[in-house]
């Protein structure tokens, strides 16, 4: 166990030693680096900028809805704003932040690899992501404005007849670029996890975060090509006179929805699973316990992936042309593995030593918010209840509970891994202030929306009937959105205030997985030495050789005098 050896693995570079990196510096380094950590940092910065942009759109939307006849923006601008809010958050923030930023940096280190399997492909992914983001956002600067048909781009509203102008084409182009970026990252993650693990790091010893990223990568490979194909069809409909999605030429509008949601629902899990993984790691570390039901957790993740391909049409229940019972039962079944995860998270905290760092607070905030979003999701899997709530604010509230939970998870991940990536901790006091604004703001923001949906307010409306009840609920929701905005400002202030102020050390959290075995930030090829890997917690085993994980009924021979909870 205590056997630590010199660098076991090295990658040769032309003209370089394998220990020290003497590449170009400055802007040229940023342009040419193939180091997964540099690329991951670029991803992180870009994705956080996208979060801020998308958040600003959200604040404008909420300000517009604060009064029934909002005049802050015109209806045309409003359509652009919510379209781009959704597009930026889904396509440009949540996904890339998960599998581009954190996975890129953390997964290779967690499995003891020196880099991603295809470093240059990894760099290409980033450049496609950046140019795709620029392409999509530049729609605001062309005549006719940005795309305005909703982030789902339903045909035939998105065809050239109903939405002329290059904003829509820029949206399609941006999606093509980011789509390929995601596919390449998916290939890269799969190859890295399958081929570059350290000796002894068997599949069932990989940390949950890496497992979730593997499943995410598989889902990316299954789902994104479908979206790309659909976008090309849409482009052909717009410019080459095909009629794939338009009735006029014998096409089928619903086909777009099938294609879009065949990507779109796995995409929901592509967004969620990485954050599940982050939260799992955070909860285990800050409870000072192993992940409860580690194998059950993996099987739950795999079954979410398996089911995710058969649930897409629950977004289409009200089309009246899909097979209701099949999609209903498949969607309901997704609740089972998700429930297993929820109880495993609670089980991980159970009888632990729960340390409320900012990261852990964010993770607990995630649990609650995700529970709310998950339970309301179960309603939507039932077609009669979906007929009732579809395209109302109830749905908006449901998925904002989910995605705000993911934002809380992202923050848990940033506070947890930030010190590893940069070498410096963030200010905990500001972090906690950020948590309370973000967590309470999320609840204040979403709960009125649930009621609004049940009272019949449809989504994607810029003005609404002057009903005092609707207005009050909208105002409360806007107040919540402002609180979330404040939390973002606190976060930015925190980064500025704690810039290179609190050195982290290699393992500030007494964490368990391999990334905490190396220095903060890690050296060019991540490790100077590796411990023996005999469980999914090599760093913990190395630091606490007497406290290995226990099965049901096993007794901890060393724990008796250390824990009052020890079994007799």
């Amino acid at each position: 166990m205590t056997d630590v050896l010199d660098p076991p693995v090295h990658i040769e570079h032309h003209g370089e030693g394998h220990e020290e990196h003497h590449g170009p510096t400055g802007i040229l380094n940023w342009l040419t680096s193939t180091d997964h950590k540099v690329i991951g940092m670029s991803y992180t910065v870009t994705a956080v900028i996208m979060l801020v942009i998308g958040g600003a759109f959200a604040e404008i939307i909420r300000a517009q809805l604060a009064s029934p006849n909002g005049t802050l923006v015109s209806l045309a601008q409003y359509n652009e704003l919510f379209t781009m809010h959704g597009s930026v958050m889904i396509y440009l923030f949540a996904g890339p932040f998960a599998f581009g930023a954190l996975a890129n940096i953390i997964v290779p280190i967690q499995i003891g690899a020196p880099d991603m399997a295809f470093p240059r492909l990894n760099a290409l992914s980033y450049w496609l992501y950046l140019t795709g983001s620029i392409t999509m956002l530049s729609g605001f600067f062309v005549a006719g404005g940005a795309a305005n048909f909703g982030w789902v781009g339903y045909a035939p509203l998105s065809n050239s007849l109903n939405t002329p102008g290059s904003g829509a084409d820029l949206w399609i182009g941006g999606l093509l670029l980011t789509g390929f970026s995601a596919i390449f990252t998916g290939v890269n993650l799969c190859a890295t996890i399958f081929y570059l693990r350290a000796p002894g790091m068997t599949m069932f010893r990989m940390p949950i975060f890496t497992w979730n990223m593997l499943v995410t990568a598989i889902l990316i490979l299954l789902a994104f090509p479908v979206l790309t194909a659909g976008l090309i069809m849409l482009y052909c409909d717009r410019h080459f006179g095909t009629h794939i999605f338009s009735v006029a030429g014998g096409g089928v509008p619903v086909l777009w929805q099938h294609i879009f949601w065949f990507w779109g629902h796995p995409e929901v899990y592509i967004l969620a699973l990485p954050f599940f993984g982050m939260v799992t790691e955070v909860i285990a570390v800050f409870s000072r316990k192993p992940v409860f039901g580690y194998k059950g957790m993996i099987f739950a993740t795999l079954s979410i992936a398996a089911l995710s391909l058969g649930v897409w049409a629950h977004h289409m229940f009200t089309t009246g042309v899909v097979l209701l019972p099949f999609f209903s039962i498949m969607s309901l079944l997704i609740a089972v593995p998700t429930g297993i995860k929820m109880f495993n998270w609670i089980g991980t905290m159970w009888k632990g030593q729960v340390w409320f760092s900012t990261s852990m607070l964010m993770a607990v905030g995630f649990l609650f918010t995700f529970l709310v979003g998950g339970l309301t999701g179960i309603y939507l899997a039932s077609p009669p209840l979906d007929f009732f709530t579809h395209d109302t604010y109830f749905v908006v509230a449901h998925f904002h509970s989910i995605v705000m939970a993911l934002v809380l998870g992202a923050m848990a991940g940033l506070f947890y891994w930030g010190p590893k990536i940069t070498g410096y901790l963030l200010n905990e006091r500001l972090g906690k202030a950020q948590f309370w604004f973000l967590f309470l703001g999320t609840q204040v923001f979403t709960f009125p929306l649930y009621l609004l949906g049940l009272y019949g307010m449809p989504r994607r409306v810029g003005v609404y009937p002057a009903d005092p009840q609707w207005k009050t609920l909208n105002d409360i929701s806007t107040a919540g959105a402002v609180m979330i905005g404040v939390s973002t400002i606190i976060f930015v202030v925190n980064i500025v205030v704690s810039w290179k102020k609190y050195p982290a050390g290699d393992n500030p959290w007494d964490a368990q997985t391999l990334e905490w075995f190396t220095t903060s930030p890690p050296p060019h090829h991540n490790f100077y030495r590796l411990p023996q890997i005999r469980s999914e917690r090599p760093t913990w085993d190395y630091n606490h050789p007497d406290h290995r994980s226990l099965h049901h009924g096993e007794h901890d021979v060393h724990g008796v005098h250390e824990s009052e909870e020890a079994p007799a």
Partner: protein
Amino acid sequence: MPTPALPPQGAPDRSRRWRRVRRAAALPLAALVLSGCTVPGFGASPGDTTSSKSVFHLWQGFSIGAVIVGGITVGLMAWAVVRYRRKGDHIPVQHQYHLPLEVFYTVMPILIVFGLFAATLVVENKETSNPKTNVTINVNAFQWGWQFTYPGSNALVYGQTTQSPVMEMPVNTNVHVNLTSTDVIHGFYVHAFNFSRYALPGVVNQFTFRAENTGTFFGQCTQLCGLYHSLMWFRVKVVSPAQYAQWLATFNNPAAAAAAAAAIKTTNEELASGVASKASYTKFGR
């Protein structure tokens, strides 16, 4: 099959007792299901059609389940968070697996899910069945308004954005709706009916309503359909069958038909001049 023999002495007592027990158990359950008032609505309302009421009861059932499961989960979470706060520097026992417990919380959700699915199927089959009827309304959605025609009569109602065209229908009668769209996808949503359905171009979606109360109800397009999607409103006016017949008859008068046509023209001109975009909006029917 032989006819079942008469039960021997003593048995009737037992079966009667059983029946009594069953009735005692069924009563509160039935009361729970039948009376929406005793169980909270969890934000939803029973609505005004037969199927909206069964949807509401399904909603209540789901909500009770969600409150119980959510309450237990939040309770466990709160207990873990409060009880196991870090107290010292010692390392807790490193328990990782507890197979019986894991099996329990895998099997329980599966049972719940199948229960919910069964309830869903019952309501869904009721709601999507198309019982026989002789009142049919053809609803045609377009950017950005609605057109209601009544096969077998001259009635035609047409209106754009906040003009809110009115769809008249008789009370306590099965009304069959054929829904389609001429351009993009729209959503036909009447909140008081707890129901929505897409209006798809090239597809005729069919469903049946049975309104149980007269009144005027607010309806709106729910699927984003372009610029004036926010204002694509309509009303559903449920009247007595006699009034309905009378209303239909007014369209047999050529003058009335001409007036309807003129209204259509005005609507188009208004929309073109952009008046409709920022009128003052009042809410109908709620």
